[in-house]
Each structure stands twice: as structure tokens, then as C-alpha cells.
């Protein structure tokens, strides 16, 4: 550490640091137009003028190792001095900047593919550690299947569309009814009578033109489930028949596609991520469906409108985590929410080694739901 409160390193030393187990937080302090032209892999963008405000989010721990760079090394040195003044103790500035990095023949300078409109629309994502331009690009490239455009699918679809998930395939066989509007906020009064998937598509396109919507007016069956899952990264299960749920599960297990599962009843909801190979599948939890009187739908039992709203948004949250590869997805964990108590309960769920769908002697092909 010099008297300036930071150390200068050249490009090769910087690369070694970035490859080491104590990889520093890499911060690009250049302006937006410079960042857009290309940046170093894994960098967080915080222009020099804003760094004293942005740093608390990027590095809450003032002793965390931080490596700053700019174009040539002048602004990053100034930014390092600013951070030293704020009490940061483990600071390095890359002498020569990204120019020196490129001249040293070092690789992985990335360019963001986002348009100016997208940079504005997703600006709050771009600020987030773990998302940023790289994460946003992943979302724009992602494909999610929503099974059901009802209580769970409606809020999930809206938030996934808002987040810029580039391709949403939605299947549902219902038409919008007035009784849906108490909770299925993707539909509107004037679209009562319209197929739900078409109504959902109208709303999604109005919300975010980046999203390609593929509305499929029909039911998920064992015959079409494989084609519905084709190319899909994550599934949102908003089904309300056990036949569809088992058909979806068995096909998703075979194709290795994670399903964000949820259920709701009156004032309570539950949620888990069924990730093939990483945790249980639906048949591990429920090898056989309950008799109809044990699992009445909302049309029989009633449901507080916000309940599927909240659970559907939690499903969208889990889907985004899976797509971005961040956080701890609810794999092997079943989250229960009691809205009236205001309490969350977490249960541990495990794979069943004898599971007909994902167990060692899986026979899902012949399994009857």
C-alpha cells in the first residue's frame, strides 16, 4: 500500500489477481459510451463520477479487495483515491487501463449487445451485481414456458416480460372470465371472452416489445408436452390439473428442464423448484395424485386474489435466479406461505430413489397419472 491508499498493478498482474482465489471485485469507472464499446469479463460498471454513491452496493465490506480500471489508468487512480478516502483499504488500480490490457494481448473484452432503448429499460438490472449487461443479455436470450395464464401464470408472465425474458411460450385452454379479474392481472375487463393466451399476449406486447410471445390456445397433454418444452430453459407450472402436472413433470425430468412449481389454496400457497438431477421431481413429492375432493381448485374453494399474485411473482423470481445462475434456488426446499399468519415455513424435500420418474429405475414412460 502506498501513501496514496492504493496500489497500481499492470495488466498482467491484474489478470493474475482476477484468476486467483481472492479474486478482487472488478470495477470499470469509465463513462457509459466507453463501457458499451467493450469491457472486461466480470466487471461492474460504476462511472468515476458516481462511484462514491455506487460503491456501498458493489462492495459493502470496506476491506474487500477491489480492482479498478478505466481507459488508460488515470481515472481509476483518482477513483481509488476517492474510495481510500471513504475508508476502503484493499484497493488496486490497473495502470494502463483497458488499453494496456488489450495491448498486453489479454483476452475476454466483451461488448454489450443492448440497444440504447434496452439500456434505459433495464437500467435497474444493469446496476445490479450478478445481473448487469451480461445477465440481461442472458435473460433476453432465454425461453420460458408458462403452463397456464391464470392465477399463477398471469403475474409470473407479467414480471418475466418486464424483466426482459426474451421468449415466453404460454399455453392455456381457457377464455377470460369476469371471475378471473380479481387476481389474474394480465387480463382486462374488455378482454372478457378472449382466449387467455391471446389476452396475455396483448398485455405482454404492450408492456415490453422485446419479448416474443408464443400463445398456444390448448391443453398440455402427454402428446404435446415434448414439443412445448422444446428449447425451453425454465418452466413455470401454473397448472390446475394433476394430469397436466404429471405429464409436465415426466417430460421435464427426461429433458432435464427445471420446473418452478407452485400451488395455492384460499389464504395459503406453496412453492418449490424441481430441478432434474439436483433435487426431487414432482413425483418424488407426490407419487400419486390426491382424490379430487382433497385438492379442490380455486373455483371451488376460493382464494384471496393477492395470494396467487404473490406466489406467481415468487415463481418468476425463482425462474430469473435459474436463468441468471444467481442466488440459492428453492431446490429441495418447499416454501409455504400463510398469508393470514404472515408466516413463511420451509420444509426439506428430497429425491425418492424409487421415484417412477427420476429414480434409478425410472419408468416414467409408462407411468399413468
Amino acid at each position, binding site marked *: 500500500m502506498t501513501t496514496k491508499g492504493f496500489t497500481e498493478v499492470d495488466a498482467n498482474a491484474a489478470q493474475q489477481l482476477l484468476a486467483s482465489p481472492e479474486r478482487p471485485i472488478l470495477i470499470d469507472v469509465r463513462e457509459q459510451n466507453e463501457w458499451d464499446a467493450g469491457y472486461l469479463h466480470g466487471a461492474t460498471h460504476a462511472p468515476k463520477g458516481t462511484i462514491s454513491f455506487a460503491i456501498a452496493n458493489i462492495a459493502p465490506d470496506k476491506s474487500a479487495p477491489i480492482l479498478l480500471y478505466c481507459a488508460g489508468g488515470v481515472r481509476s487512480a483518482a477513483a481509488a483515491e476517492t474510495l481510500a478516502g471513504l475508508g476502503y483499504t484493499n484497493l488496486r488500480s490497473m495502470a494502463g487501463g483497458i488499453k494496456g490490457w488489450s495491448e498486453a494481448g489479454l483476452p475476454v473484452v466483451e461488448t454489450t449487445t443492448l440497444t440504447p432503448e434496452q439500456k434505459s429499460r433495464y437500467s435497474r438490472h444493469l446496476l445490479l451485481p450478478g445481473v448487469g449487461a451480461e445477465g440481461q443479455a442472458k435473460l433476453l436470450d432465454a425461453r420460458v414456458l408458462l*403452463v*397456464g*395464464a*391464470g*392465477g*399463477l*401464470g398471469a403475474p409470473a408472465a407479467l414480471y418475466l416480460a418486464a424483466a426482459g425474458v426474451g421468449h415466453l411460450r404460454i399455453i*392455456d385452454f*381457457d377464455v377470460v372470465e369476469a371471475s*378471473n379479474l380479481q387476481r389474474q392481472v394480465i387480463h382486462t375487463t374488455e378482454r372478457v371472452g378472449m382466449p387467455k393466451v391471446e389476452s396475455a399476449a396483448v398485455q405482454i406486447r404492450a408492456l415490453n416489445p422485446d419479448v416474443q410471445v408464443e400463445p398456444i390456445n390448448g391443453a398440455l397433454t402427454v402428446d404435446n408436452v415434448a414439443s412445448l418444452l422444446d428449447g425451453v430453459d425454465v418452466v413455470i*407450472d*401454473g*397448472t*390446475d*390439473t*394433476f394430469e397436466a*402436472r404429471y405429464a409436465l413433470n415426466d417430460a421435464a425430468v427426461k429433458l432435464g428442464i427445471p420446473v418452478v412449481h*407452485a*400451488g*395455492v*389454496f*384460499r*389464504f*395459503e*400457497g*406453496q412453492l418449490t423448484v424441481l430441478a432434474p438431477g439436483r433435487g426431487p421431481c414432482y413425483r418424488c*413429492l*407426490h*407419487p*400419486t*395424485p*390426491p*382424490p379430487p375432493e*382433497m*385438492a*379442490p*381448485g*380455486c*373455483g371451488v*374453494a376460493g*382464494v384471496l386474489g393477492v395470494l*396467487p399474485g404473490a*406466489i*406467481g411473482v415468487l415463481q418468476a423470481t425463482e425462474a430469473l435466479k435459474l436463468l441468471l445462475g444467481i442466488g440459492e434456488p428453492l431446490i429441495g426446499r*418447499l416454501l*409455504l406461505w*400463510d398469508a393470514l*399468519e404472515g408466516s413463511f*415455513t*420451509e*420444509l*426439506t*424435500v*428430497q429425491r*425418492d430413489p424409487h421415484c417412477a420418474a427420476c429414480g434409478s429405475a425410472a419408468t416414467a414412460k409408462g407411468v399413468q397419472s
Partner: protein
Amino acid sequence: MSVSVRIPPVLRAHVGGVKVVQMSGATLGEVLSALVVAHADLREQIFESDGALRRWVNVYVDGADARHLAGLETPTPAGIEVVILPAMAGGSR
């Protein structure tokens, strides 16, 4: 030894509408037996005729699936929570 048994919403009508009932028993089997003695309508919902748990009813003891513990022999020390949780319908309609 008092154990809290959390009743799922779909079965609450059989226990007078309450969410949690207190039962005694050293094992899960004893706790659930006491439960269906106190609330006879639940027997058919929870147990097969041979006394095994119905397969669509999952029971968690202290947050873990009893089938992956010792089933009905799983010990239930005082103060522990038992959660009964059948499969839940979705939210499409």
C-alpha cells in the same frame, strides 16, 4: 409430550376449522393415531385401511419428510412441529 400438528387448509373442516392442534405421542404414529381418535373424520383422509399413511399425504416432522426419516416410527419429542401437507391444486383457473 405435546406436539403441534399443523392441519392443511383442505382438512381443517375436520378439526373444527383450526390450523394447529396439540397432540401427544412419542412417535409420529402415536401422534397421528391420537389425532384421528380425537377427530375421527380425518382417519380416512390420512390413513389407508391397513394403517399406512395415504400416499398423497406428506407428513413433515421438524421440517423433514417423515418418509425419509423413520416413517410412522419417527420420534416426536415434545415441542416439535408436525406438518401434514397433501398435494395442492394449482392456480390456472
